[in-house]
């Protein structure tokens, strides 16, 4: 990355590989060298420390590979996958993952949307308010898990204290000790964390909606719900749909809160696929963990493909 920087002299002349750039630039050796030299460090780092381990991790899925016994790392075909699919825990884990993703994302989307709609208008202290409610972003999921674990503590947790004071429950609830309430507590923490992301993305999308549309609607005397459903939502629909997809993938792969709050417990009942996989890795069974990882990738690919297809069809129906 040091010896680069050749000066580009004059106009480029040759017309090789004519790209479709905004300004119809043509290929020259000099420009090619600059691209190569400037891209090289980024590509090399990502290749060595991200792609190489990922690919070599993928092949472990088809091997016996346990840190406890590295003398035998023979190929075992689909044995790791069979072991996973015949393990009843796997299906609990898969179900948990679905709950974790959808129960988190729907409230995140709704609250984030409402926040974005209201933040779009100018009001006094808007900047301060925005900074205040965006701060969860600066905190790691792990720490958020710890903070919520403390708040959901069965004996000295503030959430029980508040609920008893308000009169919603009579006696403190041991939130994290039972699977159902534990999952609920996890989702609460995740919703708290993720609203910010939706608020930010939707706010940005809203700001790209032309004001004239709203002015025209106001002239026509359109009601607020009509403006929302016939102007705002259609205008940002694509961004919204893609944000939801990215978020589904991200939350699917997001173990930090669960890892810190319950560690997958009690009795494996709050594991999602990624926390389960981390546990397997920590036991040293890399073959099993990699196979789980590949299943995750496959599930996400299939989901994304269907989602994008459905999205495209809807668009075609509309237009």
């Amino acid at each position, binding site marked *: 990355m040091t010896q*680069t*920087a*050749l000066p*580009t002299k004059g106009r480029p002349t040759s017309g090789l590989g004519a*790209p479709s*750039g905004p300004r119809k630039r043509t*290929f020259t050796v000099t420009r090619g060298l*600059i*691209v190569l030299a*400037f*891209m090289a460090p*980024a590509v090399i*780092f990502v290749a*060595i*420390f*991200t*792609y*190489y*381990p*990922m690919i*070599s*991790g*993928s092949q472990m899925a088809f091997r016996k*590979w346990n840190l406890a016994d590295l003398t035998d790392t023979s190929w075992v075909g689909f044995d790791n996958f069979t072991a996973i699919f015949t393990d009843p825990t796997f299906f609990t884990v898969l179900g948990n993952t679905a709950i974790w993703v959808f129960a988190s994302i729907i409230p995140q989307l709704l609250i984030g949307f*409402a926040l974005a709609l*209201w933040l779009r208008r100018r009001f006094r202290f808007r900047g301060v*308010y925005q900074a205040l*409610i*965006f*701060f969860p*972003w*600066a905190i790691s999921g*792990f*720490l958020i898990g*710890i*903070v919520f*674990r*403390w708040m959901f503590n069965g*004996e*000295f947790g*503030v959430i029980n*204290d508040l609920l008893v004071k308000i009169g919603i429950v009579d006696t403190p609830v041991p939130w994290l000790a039972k699977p159902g309430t534990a999952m609920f507590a996890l989702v609460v923490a995740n919703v*708290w964390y993720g*609203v910010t992301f939706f608020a*930010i*993305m939707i706010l*940005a*999308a809203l700001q790209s909606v032309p004001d004239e549309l709203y002015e025209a609607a106001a002239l026509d005397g359109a009601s607020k719900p009509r403006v929302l459903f016939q102007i705002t939502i259609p205008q940002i629909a694509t961004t919204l749909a893609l944000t939801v997809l*990215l978020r589904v*993938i991200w939350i699917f792969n997001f173990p*930090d809160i669960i*890892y810190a709050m319950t560690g997958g417990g009690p009795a494996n009942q709050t594991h999602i696929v990624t926390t389960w*996989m981390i546990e397997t*890795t920590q036991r040293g069974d*890399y073959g099993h*963990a*990699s196979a789980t*990882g590949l299943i*995750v*990738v496959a599930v996400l690919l299939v989901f994304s493909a269907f989602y994008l297809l459905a999205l495209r069809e809807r668009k075609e129906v509309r237009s």
Partner: protein
Amino acid sequence: MTSHQSVVGRVIRVLFLTLWAVITLFPLYWITITSFKTPGAIFSYPLAYWPEEFSLENYIGLFQKAQFGTYILNSLTVSTAAAAVATLIAMLSGYVLARFEFRSKSAVLLAFLVTQMIPSFIALGPLYLLMVQLGLVDQKLGLVLIYIAVCIPVSTVMLRGFFANVPDALEEAALIDGCSRLTALFRVIAPVMKPGIIAAFIFNFVNCWNELFLSVTLMNSDENRTIPTALNAFITSFNIEWASMAAAAVLTILPTMVLFAFASRYIVQGLTAGAVKG
């Protein structure tokens, strides 16, 4: 009638915004309050929403009983080094991706995007083995190298968005004057987009500062632990010592919050620009 409606709407809006602000801030308030209670006061009824006396005992304990100073220093070193190098590298790649058309461009962008979608835990085991081969297990340099690679994709996309907003007339003038690309990039363009570069750096820094699973996997000696790894050790031992944990959490959150407060506007700009423009 319409004015009546808008009054109701306004009340709802203010109520909602206030409620959400309270919900957002409460966990932070609670962990901070907890950290200033004495260990005894934390486990006593009724819960105190404002401590009777503010005690620094938990904070002092962190530095006396645990080597919290070392952990802070480790986190600071690793995060600063990784964020600085990653931001530099991402400036180069982001610049090229914003200014040049080349055949493998969309392939590179796709490859960067994919890194965000595949569970990184699939690479956890192999990364450990790679570090064994390189002799970098339990060394800060190893962690720095990996963090750089983790930071590059997102910050490249972010910086690319910022570069796209700088008119290229600026560097073209410099190039005609005989500047090299590299000089033009660092002397002419970088000063103009300082906020974007700082935002990318802070974003990277915070991500490294918060990273847990890679450092837990790679750093096993106490003297090399980063803060999240140390907190993780607080948990996995039988009982959580909530008093120290609360103080440690506050110390961990504080710097990132301060940094974010400075840069959040630009980070939001960079991320949304990157995402919207693709």
